[in-house]
């Protein structure tokens, strides 16, 4: 077993979150997110580069997480999974077609992702925390 954090708990938490997310977003099945210090308020990021998308999770999640932090992590993974699933063009098209939401200071497409990941987090909360369906 080779995990980034010494105890290995975080990586396991992330992979379990990915496993749950893959039921909603098939493209994320089996992916291995990287831990990066994203800084500021950013906790997750999906990069679309030359060699395909890469999901990055903030290294602030490294370590043993309490339940609230785990739920936050699940939310982040579900959010980034939607970006990952939609791909470069899907994200671009989503932003352009949905337009800018002045109230939230963000693209409507992105606000919708926050909303849907919040709903999905509630849906899978107990299963994720207890490891049961």
């Amino acid at each position, binding site marked *: 077993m080779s995990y980034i954090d010494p105890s290995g708990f975080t990586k396991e938490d992330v992979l379990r979150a990915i496993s749950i997310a893959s039921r909603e977003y098939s493209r994320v099945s089996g992916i291995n997110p990287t831990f990066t210090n994203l800084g500021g*308020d950013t906790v997750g*990021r999906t990069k*679309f580069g*030359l*060699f395909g998308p*890469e999901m990055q999770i903030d290294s602030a999640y490294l370590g043993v997480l309490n339940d609230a932090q785990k739920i936050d992590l699940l*939310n982040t993974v579900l959010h980034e999974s939607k970006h990952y699933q939609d791909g470069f063009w899907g994200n671009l098209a989503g932003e352009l077609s949905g337009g800018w939401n002045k109230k*939230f200071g*963000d693209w409507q497409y992105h606000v919708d992702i*926050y909303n849907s990941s919040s709903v999905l987090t509630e849906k899978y909360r107990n299963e994720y925390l207890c490891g049961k369906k």
Partner: protein
Amino acid sequence: MNKKIGFLIFGIVVGALGLFIVNKVGFTVKERPKLINTMLEMDKVRGLLSDYKTACGNYPTSIVSYENLSEKVKNKNCVEDAQKGNFSDKWGNLYIYKSDENGFRLLSAGPDWIEATNSKETERVEKAE
């Protein structure tokens, strides 16, 4: 001939530069999870408070938690809670909630507990212990 080679070299350089930028910078969106999730939660709570008013005829005097309020609305339970709530925003700070017969005020002071009263003036919110 030289012109063609010049265009070819120009095309290759621009293409390589473009690919480098796409790969280096990527296409990323600015993530502001705490701010937007707090705003979304406040929107949902405002909706629940409106439903509560319809069911009970008044706004609740306090909010214990989002789940508690949601349950109350669902079950049309208008009994006020004796317990003090721990209803917090995504920064872990308590929401500021006040209500009377005319309406309610629901605020999150954000990460720094500074309430923007207008674009030029800010006011520090007193944090309840």
